[in-house]
């Protein structure tokens, strides 16, 4: 499963791609304590569950096609996360560091561009707002 309501087990994810590869690259997205100058206390992640699953599977498949010797795993949290919690994890293994870095970078970029997940930020005064990356 790519979408989870439970904390992401990064060690387990790393183990899934480990083999005889020369390089393993790990990206973690972490809930920040501010966004565009506004303090954030928590983020609620909402997903179009079945489509988020299939889109993350598609991203991983496409990355492994574009970097044929890579192996990629992606997990994303859903639900309410506090500051400091890991919201998304991408691991990419490849024979050399260059491919591992490239595959990992491309995977998180594609996840952010296409996977139907939304986030609502909660502020210290109790207000909240959906994040719109196309504005700003």
């Amino acid at each position, binding site marked *: 499963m790519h979408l989870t309501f439970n904390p992401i087990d990064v060690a387990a994810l790393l183990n899934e791609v480990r083999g005889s590869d020369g390089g393993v690259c790990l990206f973690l997205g972490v809930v920040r304590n501010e966004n565009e100058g506004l303090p954030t206390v928590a983020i609620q992640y*909402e997903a*179009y569950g079945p489509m988020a699953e299939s889109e993350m599977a598609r991203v991983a498949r496409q990355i492994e096609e574009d970097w044929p010797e890579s192996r990629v795993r992606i997990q994303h949290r859903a639900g309410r996360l506090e500051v400091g919690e890991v*919201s998304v994890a991408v691991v990419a293994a490849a024979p050399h560091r260059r491919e591992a870095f490239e595959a990992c970078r491309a995977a998180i970029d594609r*996840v952010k561009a*296409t996977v*139907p*997940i939304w*986030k609502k930020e909660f502020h210290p005064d109790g207000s909240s707002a959906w994040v*719109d*990356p196309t504005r700003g």
Partner: protein
Amino acid sequence: MPLFAGVDLPEMRVNLLYFASFRDAAGLSEQVRELPEGTRVAQLWEAVAREIPRLAAFPAMPPAAVNREYVDGETLLRDGDEVAFLPPVAGG
């Protein structure tokens, strides 16, 4: 296609899903809609935007999915389709 001019087109039903800011704007998360056969995705969006003024503020049709796959506005809808117009995604 109509068999005879002037005869109503047969209806079909699609299940329309709303997420995140669109759900807030619509005030619901799911809606069964009856549409004439031959309706395209962009035509459904026009109908939805007419009903929900906060969605009409959108400059163009947002990304759309039919049966959990991204589609373009020209896509023909079919009876039983699951349709969603997606607010700007913000994962990560």
